[in-house]
């Protein structure tokens, strides 16, 4: 019986049905299924399938982003129960991501967040035009393993450097691995500003994130 609902949950993520995902999460709780099982045996299987099909080129970005939205919807319903049972979903790692100060472009960053979420990271997307101080505050409060700084413009790339400097000043630099990305960003720039990781695209970002978390 429960096998069937788990399959439906996975399918909802694959189909990108956000409303249905939330509904199924509630239905599972109502049936007395453990919140951790609902996540791992149901929804996570779905997002893993989405990630796999994306990797094979069968799924495109809209499927990926909507799959991640379904996960969010399900976790939104399961949240209190997960907390109460102290069952955490086994996560690959925790990450905070945002577009740096002065830059309003967030699609690239959003795609990276979706890819990371679909790959099993717990990702907090803090939005765009985020000041170094706000990133520092976020790192000290959320204590993520990874901090991802996105910049689309050559002029706003500089804020990646100042954010890293602000982390150093706050004594938090050693607590978090910093990844940088965005159209004008290169490995040379990442090295120059002392970032821990750089990826050219969202797919590579996942590989780099995994490596950095393992290394950490």
């Amino acid at each position, binding site marked *: 019986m429960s096998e069937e609902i788990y399959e439906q949950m996975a399918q909802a993520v694959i189909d990108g049905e956000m409303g249905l995902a939330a509904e199924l999460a509630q239905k599972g709780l109502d049936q007395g299924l453990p919140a951790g099982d609902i996540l791992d045996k149901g929804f996570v299987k779905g997002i893993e399938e989405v990630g796999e099909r*994306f990797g094979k*080129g069968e799924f*495109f*970005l*809209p499927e990926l982003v909507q799959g991640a939205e379904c996960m969010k919807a399900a976790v939104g319903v399961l949240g209190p129960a997960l907390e109460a049972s102290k069952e955490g979903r086994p996560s690959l790692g925790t990450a905070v991501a945002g577009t740096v100060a002065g830059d*309003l*472009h967030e*699609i*690239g960053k959003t*795609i990276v967040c979706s890819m990371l979420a679909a790959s099993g990271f717990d990702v907090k997307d803090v939005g765009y035009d985020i000041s170094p101080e706000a990133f520092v505050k976020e790192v000290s409060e959320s204590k993520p393993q990874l901090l991802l700084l996105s910049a689309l*413009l*050559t*002029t706003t*790339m*500089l804020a990646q450097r100042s954010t890293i400097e602000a982390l150093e000043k706050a004594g938090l630099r050693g607590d978090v691995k910093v990844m940088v990305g965005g*159209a*004008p960003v*290169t490995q*040379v720039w990442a090295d120059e500003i002392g970032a821990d990781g750089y990826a050219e*695209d*969202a*797919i590579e970002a996942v590989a780099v994130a995994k490596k950095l978390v393992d290394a950490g």
Partner: protein
Amino acid sequence: MTNARLSMWGEDECLRAHQATLAVLVDPGAEVQNARARELLAAAGATIDGTRASIPAKLVEDALTSAPKSFIVMSRGGHDPLVMEQGNTYYGTGGDCLHTRDLDSGERRRARLADVTALAVLSERLPGIDFVMSMGLAEDGPTESPELAEFTALLKGTRKPLVVDPVCGPESLAAFRRMAALAGEPNSFMIYAMPTSPFLHNESALGRVMGCAELGIPLIYASGACPGFTAPASRSAMVVETNAEVLSGLVIHQLARPGAPFVYGTSAPAMSMSTTSIVYVAPESYAMQQTLCDMGRSYGLPSWTVGGCADSNTLDTQWAAETANSLIMAALTGCTMVHDLGYLESGVQSSHESILFADELVGFVRAYLDGVPLDDLDKAVSEIRAVGPGGDHLARPHTRKHYRDFWQPSLVDQWAHDHWAADGGKTLNDRLTAWARELHSQPPVFTLDPSVADELDAIVSERRTA
């Protein structure tokens, strides 16, 4: 100049899209992140709520009326000016490639200021290149305000009109003007700016929009909306959104100074939903660009589009096909300016070879678009009669006088096989590289007066230390 062109939309379709554009400019309107721009809009009758402007139709119609239908951008000598009006089509390179294909080694490497100049020096020689952009985000340029260093690198390489697309504050606009004047002609460049789609005119873009209007520097305003990302995944919605973003920019521009020169920018990039990379040569993009150019024509504004470029990562068959396809599609739009000639890797990489090839294709396309004029029909009939059935025209003075009117390739091979084989069996790429190296080894056709170059360099270092 040529008249042959394609239309996908007639007046009826343009009017329907225009009305949809007016509707979205009222609701949702546009985000205007500049206080002065909002004041101008409010004073003219727009409804302002916070940073959101709801723009009524009258403002759009007023702006379309006051924007000039024709203006001139000068060269700094040696080349014709650009007469910016519908009916003319000019071709130019693209801006800001991170990488370049090294002419000596063939390797892809980061672009430097010397590359910006070298590609401008090449463009200076080529008859198919009418305007020039900084084809490199220079690795060795200053990290802050790189725009003046790149502008200087261009001024050193070419006298052709320049298009500059810096992300810079309005203070740089006056500096560009001063530098262009020092180099010989203040009215020899244009500025490019774009909103952040969907419907957001940010402070930096508006600084350039209003600064250009006030200084009378021609502005190209183009949207980079992308279907499924920053615009709905629908061709009609993309065209309406793009049009609305450009026209709301035009409204602010014309309010800042009515009659200031403005170019209606069209581009409709796609983004691959599987690879997440920007795609320049997609069939839908060119269909949308065509209809946007039809819109631009219906407004009577000079327009701007993309062509002669490639998504391919290297100089392969895909590159050649994309460059040729996109150039002919862009030329057929009848757009006033076609830029990005010579792009590889979706605008990430430049190369000498790809610019040379695009230049060759411009010759081909211009000859094609000359069409078949009928103004010499009487003479044609008398020539047919003069030779009659069974003869030949080789010895006719008419032939000698006119056969050079036909396009002559310089790099495309048209020899018979044995001649080609005896000459080493070279491919197009072999010939392009060899010719680019040959041109590079010759003295440049233009050199900037060293004392002027020094003055320009001084302006760049002033800014760096300021």
